[in-house]
């Protein structure tokens, strides 16, 4: 009897500690409510082939633009250097040690209007693993990366031009859609307004492509576990980037994404970045997908057709 009583007290103590941890005030604001188990979970409708139906157009935030590691000023560019993450540096992202931040009202360039209220509970955005917020670089690869960044402004050669300034396919991390999800049988198809690309996530159990096929956007296979879509992507080429601060990843990149339905308008997003050529272990970053207002239509984004970027940087190439 007394053992059960003390166990109960222990359980209450643990629960309280955990709850208080989640209720840590951010920026002096009152803590948000933690969703209790009694809160009614959203049950999505189903597609004809039985998938949870997440179809619609979404804005995405919180994934790239990472600059949460140890600060270090790098030479004459000072605050313009993406690694010099101070509050005044517009390239810096979250400085907060707790990893929680307020959900921004509209976080797309141009302010894509979102549908419905933000999720009731604060979401994690940005780097969530490792918890000390220092990316697990191999030391020599971190040095290589910092040396590389010194030659990007101005770009020393074509190699040092950011991929999305070249209108390259942005891979999984660059750009922010908006994204239209459609779900034909045995697939989740993601259409991006940015760069007008299509990602096909195969749910039919097929294997990945052979290892000699390398793609900017990789090759994605996935499956549903309850209301979470899990996507495994391999076959990346060597022309991918994570953000301005991480201007390249390697062709050993392997990602695992988890997209979890919160309610009819919002989805949690987590991606594990596993690149054994650059990092000592995988790391994880989080984002949020929010449905945009009804009536929004994806527009044409003709990047190469209107771009003078390379000519402006380097001059006109000699004619053939």
């Amino acid at each position, binding site marked *: 009897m007394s053992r059960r009583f003390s166990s109960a007290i222990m359980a209450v103590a643990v629960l309280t500690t955990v709850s208080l941890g989640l209720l840590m005030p951010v920026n002096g604001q009152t803590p948000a409510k933690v969703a209790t188990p009694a809160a009614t979970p959203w049950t999505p409708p189903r597609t004809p082939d039985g998938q949870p139906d997440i179809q619609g157009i979404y804005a995405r935030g919180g994934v790239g633009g990472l600059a949460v590691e140890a600060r270090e000023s790098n030479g004459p560019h000072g605050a313009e250097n993406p690694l010099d993450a101070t509050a005044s540096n517009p390239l810096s992202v979250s400085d907060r040690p707790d990893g929680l931040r307020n959900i921004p009202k509209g976080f797309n360039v141009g302010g894509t209007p979102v549908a419905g209220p933000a999720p009731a509970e604060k979401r994690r955005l940005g780097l969530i693993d490792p918890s000390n917020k220092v990316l697990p670089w191999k030391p020599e690869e971190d040095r290589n990366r910092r040396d590389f960044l010194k030659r990007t402004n101005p770009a020393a050669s074509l190699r040092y031009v950011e991929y999305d300034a070249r209108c390259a396919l942005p891979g999984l991390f660059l750009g922010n859609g908006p994204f239209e999800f*459609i779900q034909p049988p045995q697939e989740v198809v993601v259409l991006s307004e940015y760069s007008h690309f299509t990602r096909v996530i195969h749910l039919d159990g097929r294997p990945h492509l052979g290892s000699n096929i390398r793609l900017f956007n990789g090759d994605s296979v996935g499956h549903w576990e309850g209301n979470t879509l899990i996507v495994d992507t391999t076959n990346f080429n060597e022309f991918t980037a994570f953000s301005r601060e991480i201007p390249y990843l390697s062709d050993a990149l392997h990602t695992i994404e988890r997209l979890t339905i919160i309610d009819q308008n919002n989805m949690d997003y987590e991606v594990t970045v596993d690149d054994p050529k650059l990092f000592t272990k995988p790391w994880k970053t989080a984002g949020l997908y929010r449905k945009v207002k009804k009536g929004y239509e994806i527009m044409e984004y003709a990047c190469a057709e209107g771009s003078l970027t390379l000519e402006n940087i380097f001059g006109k190439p000699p004619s053939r």
Partner: protein
Amino acid sequence: MNTIRRSIISAAAFATILWLMEIPALAQAPAARAGAPRRMADGKPDFNGIWQALNTAAWDIQDHVGQLGVPPGQGVVEGNEIPYQAWALAKKKENFANRKTADQTEVNCFLPGVPRITYMPFPFKIAQTSKAIAFSYEFAHGLRIIQMEGNHPDPDSFPDTWMGDSRGHWEGETLVVDVRNFNDQTWFDQAGNFHSDALHVVERYTLTDPDHINYEATIEDPKVFTRPWKMSMPLYRRVEKNMELLEYECVFYLQEERYKNAPFKK
């Protein structure tokens, strides 16, 4: 008695075998599946899959002889005549003479417009649900979302586009796609056939069997042609197991080539 019964049973078995062989799935004959197209849950014909044109329209939509690098072909234009206005016919000939520098799709990998992107020699994917239809093209990762609701944007206030604005509806078994809001930057082929920003295309996609689409595109452009005209061609399903679109990123490849010795003296 036993013998007669056995004979009858044998005859019945033989007849059954003959009858079973009429069913295509069990017959020896391979190749295209006979029968009606698959259907979506909402009853519409199912266009999901990867498709490709198998003709030479990308080089020249009219009859043309072979040359080095250009396969010969019978045209896809009905009547083989493109009804150019007099000034436009001269312009087409000028385009043809300049095609090695003036065809922005071949020279710069720019978006080919509609319907040229349909018959580029690359596969494309149709993703279809009851709510949305999208065409994704392997060439330059082209994308057309076929809006099944709403109207074309106002051309006076909305920017022109390379791939047009596509609005779809069903006419029986046929997906009809009305495309407007084009710019004047694309050609219909490498032979210099062109249009203005008044271009209006009506596409019709009809499944003739599970693996073939009959594709028609009616072209209307009062600034360039004397009347509407039409192209038509079959589209073939890519039936390979685990077929998927890959990436043909010619913009990137061209940059690697053109800027490999950058920076250049200004």
